[in-house]
């Protein structure tokens, strides 16, 4: 397997697969989060189920973490090879003449998303893991006996700095997905008469989902 992953094409295939997996996860994450706008109760129930279900916690979550780590590590591995492939750069380089900004700067949009993810993990994932697995409290209830998930989200978006930070993170996510989502199909060998329609769908997805996340952050900040 490691020999197979030495090839540029196999690496890009693996990159595409892990990226697509994360895109699907993102949709699931969004549909749970958006319930927080409509019903605190529904959001609490979803959150409690996701946080305590054995399959989600012990099967899906480790796969997700592996997918995230793999995507980032492979991204940097590919970038190192790319940089080595041109030791002396051009005195004048007109990249915008033949390619989009998003496609040329995936490493930077990805890097910002990595920083954002670390902050996001510290904000939400680490406290949850601490309560559930360190303190051993699997009830999901706060001191008053109510589910804590919705309140945690609302309190988190009270400060303007965190709201802005998340909005910036989602903008980078959109920029990354606009190229990455459609590019993953090319890396896996899919380029035919349906590609144009697929690009329309992937671009819409890349814009609508991050916009939705921005809406959720702003909604909780403003309310």
């Amino acid at each position, binding site marked *: 397997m490691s020999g*197979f992953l*030495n*090839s*540029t*094409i*196999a*690496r*890009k*295939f693996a990159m595409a697969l892990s990226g697509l997996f994360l895109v699907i996860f993102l949709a699931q994450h969004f549909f749970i989060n958006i319930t927080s706008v409509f019903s605190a109760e529904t959001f609490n129930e979803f959150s409690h189920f996701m946080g305590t279900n054995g399959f989600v916690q012990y099967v899906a979550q480790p796969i997700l973490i592996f997918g995230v780590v793999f995507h980032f590590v492979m991204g940097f591995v*590919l970038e190192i*090879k*790319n940089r*080595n*492939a*041109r*030791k*002396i*750069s*051009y*005195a*004048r*380089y*007109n*990249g915008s*003449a*033949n*390619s*989009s900004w998003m*496609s*040329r700067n*995936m490493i930077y949009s990805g890097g910002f998303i990595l920083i954002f993810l670390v902050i996001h993990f510290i904000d939400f994932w680490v406290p949850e893991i601490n309560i559930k697995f360190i303190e051993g409290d699997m009830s999901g209830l706060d001191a008053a006996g109510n589910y804590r998930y919705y309140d945690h989200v609302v309190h988190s978006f009270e400060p303007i700095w965190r709201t802005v930070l998340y909005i910036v993170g989602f903008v980078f996510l959109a920029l990354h997905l606009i*190229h990455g989502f459609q*590019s993953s199909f*090319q*890396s*896996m*060998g*899919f*380029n*035919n008469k349906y590609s144009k329609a697929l690009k329309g769908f992937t671009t819409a997805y890349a814009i609508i989902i991050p916009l939705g996340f921005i809406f959720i952050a702003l909604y909780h900040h403003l309310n």
Partner: protein
Amino acid sequence: MNLTLKIWRQSDAGKKGRIVDYKIDDVSPDMSFLDMLDMLNEQLNNKGEEPVAFDHDCREGICGSCSLQINGEPHGPDRMITTCQLHMRTFKDGDTIYIEPFRAKAFPVIKDLIVDRSSFDRIQHAGGFISVNTSGNTIDANAIPVNKHDADKAFDAATCIGCGACVAACKNASAMLFVSAKVSQFALLPQGKIEATDRVLNMVRQMDEEGFGNCSNTGACEIECPKGISLENIARMNREYMSASLKG
């Protein structure tokens, strides 16, 4: 037209190079870009200076010799042409033009603007062929029926002249468009099926060994290719490679 040229000068592969400025006057808009460089070299010769070394051969857009990164794009700002087909009317009087060699670790500079593109030859040697007995038992070209769609796609791929513009344009100096064209021209034809598995595995292995970068699917190669080789070929090579890996 009067122009300022900023040209990469490097005396040989082992020496460090640098950009040198040249003023050139009375350039005709009807000249080709290479004619303009010939004119500059005549002036340099007359002054007793070393002329600028650059690649050229057919000067009609079919050999792929003329390279040159012009103002940050391979073969200059026009589309679907090589440098010999680029005319000075594309530029304006008073323009400053950057002229650099195609940059890639796998394309080391030999001198000035000439790069060594033999890495492409080694990729071809690794699998860019079909084994046909030519010793008196040649099969008629039309003996095996090929459907029109596949024949056209194979021909489109075969129009690649191996100039290296795809590598020069790519931010990663990736050779995927070139290699995919050479894989596709056989992958689509019955004659190429026999060695298809080995071909794609060997050519991709050689491509990686030469030190070309990965494909980020920016599409720059397709835009800059003088022959309009499509990104479809890269997708086809990706499919060929993955299925060959599973078989082999």
